[in-house]
């Protein structure tokens, strides 16, 4: 079994796996340092940042070629690389945000494990972005989930955090149970777990449609839970409200990104004709199941419910939770198209969504550091107490609504053009209507900040310089990518290549 060929392939695989290896090494080194230096406040955060940056350097320098690594268990390709870079950027921003979080350090809480687990979660998401085998998908989802369960309940003395963690575990267990059942059905149907082998089994033999539909739905349910698509979203509001704000922001961007990466890869590699290499832009479905309709229904449900329920929210974290559900719906619209243009739009939207959503959560965290909670009422008059922070919030809100001249507009524009180019005109109409609805609740925050109850004890909030720098780091790209978006487009277009197997 173990011969020269295997060993040389293994060596190549290990070389390409370097960013992930660095993450695991960082994880263990940070764990040991945490045991030695028990009382340091920021040491583990610094170690994590160093590890993440190193991993990022190797990630960016990796070649743009595609290869199957570790006996086809993982696919190394530009598509996976894009998501890995996105996840890594999110992680770095979240770690920096966490350093300024008051909630997290309250009462002298030890935060070593917090950063360690974030690194572990990043490792799980990296794997999810490149997984090409359902067993690896399952392991990666579990690695990511178990870290996130603990992180959601990290401030365990606070009741709502423990509650959030528990709810997350229970829903997560059910969804991963469903997923592994779906995986077993797929294995029974095709006799394989690797995406490309599933694909060739589907081309060569007659697959029972009903069973495939149920198996696929079960797997989509497992992934849908991670991207909080309706009807698998029930945990989202409670967990987002209960978890520390930094973790809420992290879950709303990074774990969604990983979920979308694996969803697109699984659909594309398994269910589309891979023998038709000539024209990559047109994906031909194989089998009798129209997965586009399935995803389209998910997308409509997700964005409509997310937007409608967000209208009634009075807690900022809950509001942003529903808003993030709605955004998952918009991104699913790009998945529905199922062409290279669709995937490009998903990539663009995701990058933009990362910046603006992290920005919005950063503002919520900064304000909560001062006021102690995230109630929307507390935002009354913030526009006068903290002018700069509020101005940034306005930028993020405009961007989240999807209006020019912000990056959010570019994301929406990319997704809507992709949908209009396909035959799903009605989906684009639903999407536009939803954007209009979303305007209402974003404006509500704006109104509270600037117009409502301007109290005359105009106390000015002071913030640390670090938070200002972070805010600028997030607010400036939100504006710049709204005006000068060519690099983003180019990067996304060069990253749509999904490795289809040998």
């Amino acid at each position, binding site marked *: *079994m*173990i011969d020269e060929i295997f060993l040389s392939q293994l060596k190549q695989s290990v070389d390409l796996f370097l960013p992930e290896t660095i993450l695991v090494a960082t994880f*263990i080194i940070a764990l*040991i340092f945490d*045991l030695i230096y028990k009382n340091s406040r920021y040491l583990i955060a610094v170690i994590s940042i160093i590890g993440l940056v190193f991993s990022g350097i190797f990630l960016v320098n990796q070649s743009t070629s595609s290869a199957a690594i570790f006996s086809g268990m993982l696919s190394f390709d530009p598509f996976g690389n894009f998501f890995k870079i996105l996840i890594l950027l999110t992680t770095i921003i979240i770690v920096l945000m966490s350093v300024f979080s008051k909630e997290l350090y309250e009462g002298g809480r030890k935060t070593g494990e917090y950063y360690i687990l974030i690194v572990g979660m990043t490792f799980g998401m990296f794997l999810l972005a490149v997984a090409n085998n359902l067993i690896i998908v399952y392991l990666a989802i579990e690695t990511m989930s178990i870290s996130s369960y603990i992180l959601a309940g990290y401030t365990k003395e606070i009741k709502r955090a423990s509650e959030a963690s528990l709810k997350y575990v229970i829903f997560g267990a059910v969804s991963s149970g469903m997923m592994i059942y779906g995986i077993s059905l797929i294995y029974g149907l095709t006799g394989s777990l690797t995406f490309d082998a599933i694909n060739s089994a589907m081309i060569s033999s007659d697959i029972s449609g009903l069973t495939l539909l149920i198996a696929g739905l079960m797997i989509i349910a497992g992934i849908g839970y991670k991207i909080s698509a309706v009807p698998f979203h029930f945990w989202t509001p409670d967990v987002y409200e209960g978890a520390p704000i930094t973790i809420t922001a992290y879950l709303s961007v990074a774990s969604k990104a990983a979920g979308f990466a694996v969803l697109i890869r699984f659909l594309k590699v398994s269910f589309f004709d891979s023998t038709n290499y000539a024209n990559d832009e047109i994906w031909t479905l194989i089998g009798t199941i129209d997965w586009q309709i399935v995803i389209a229904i998910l997308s409509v449900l997700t964005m409509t419910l997310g937007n409608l329920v967000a209208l009634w929210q009075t807690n900022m974290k809950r509001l942003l939770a529903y808003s993030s559900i709605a955004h998952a719906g918009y991104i699913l619209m790009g998945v529905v198209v199922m062409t290279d243009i669709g995937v490009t739009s998903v990539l663009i939207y995701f990058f933009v969504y990362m910046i603006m959503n992290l920005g919005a959560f950063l503002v919520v965290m900064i304000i909560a550091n001062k006021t102690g909670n995230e109630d929307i009422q507390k935002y009354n008059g913030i526009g006068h107490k903290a002018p700069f922070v509020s101005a940034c919030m306005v930028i993020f809100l405009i961007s989240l609504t999807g209006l020019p001249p912000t990056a959010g507009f570019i994301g929406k524009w990319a997704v809507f053009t992709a949908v209009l180019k396909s035959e799903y005109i009605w989906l684009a109409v639903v999407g536009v209507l939803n954007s209009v609805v979303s305007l209402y609740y974003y404006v509500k925050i704006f109104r509270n900040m600037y117009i409502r109850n301007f109290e005359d004890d105009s106390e000015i909030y002071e913030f640390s310089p670090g938070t200002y720098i972070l805010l600028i780091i997030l607010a400036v790209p939100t504006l710049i990518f709204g005006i000068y978006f060519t690099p983003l487009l180019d990067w996304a277009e060069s990253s749509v290549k999904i490795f289809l197997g040998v």
Partner: protein
Amino acid sequence: MIETYLPLIFMLVFAFAVAFIFMILSEWIGAKRTTPEKVTTYESGMVPRGTARERFSVKFYLVAMSFIVFDIEVIFMYPWAVSFNETGLAGLIGMIIFVIILLAGLIYEIRKGGLKWD
């Protein structure tokens, strides 16, 4: 295939039979002279006190939780040990990495006092 498990089946049947026969025999042949001491709950010779329905300390649970993780680790070692001749040095290195990663967990557990009783 079933032949492979024949000894196991015999052992199971034998174990059940022995237990069952002894119980029935002692019920039939045994003398039944009851004294108050004999009918009390058996507590290894101590005089029983309190109810048996006491709450257990949560510490048992914590140890059991750590136990499961290491239990799973051992289960992974078994197939490696059996296939050692085939996988050889590369397999050994793979296993060493596996163990080192988990060793970090054990060190963590010990240093954080996860295995301390008090």
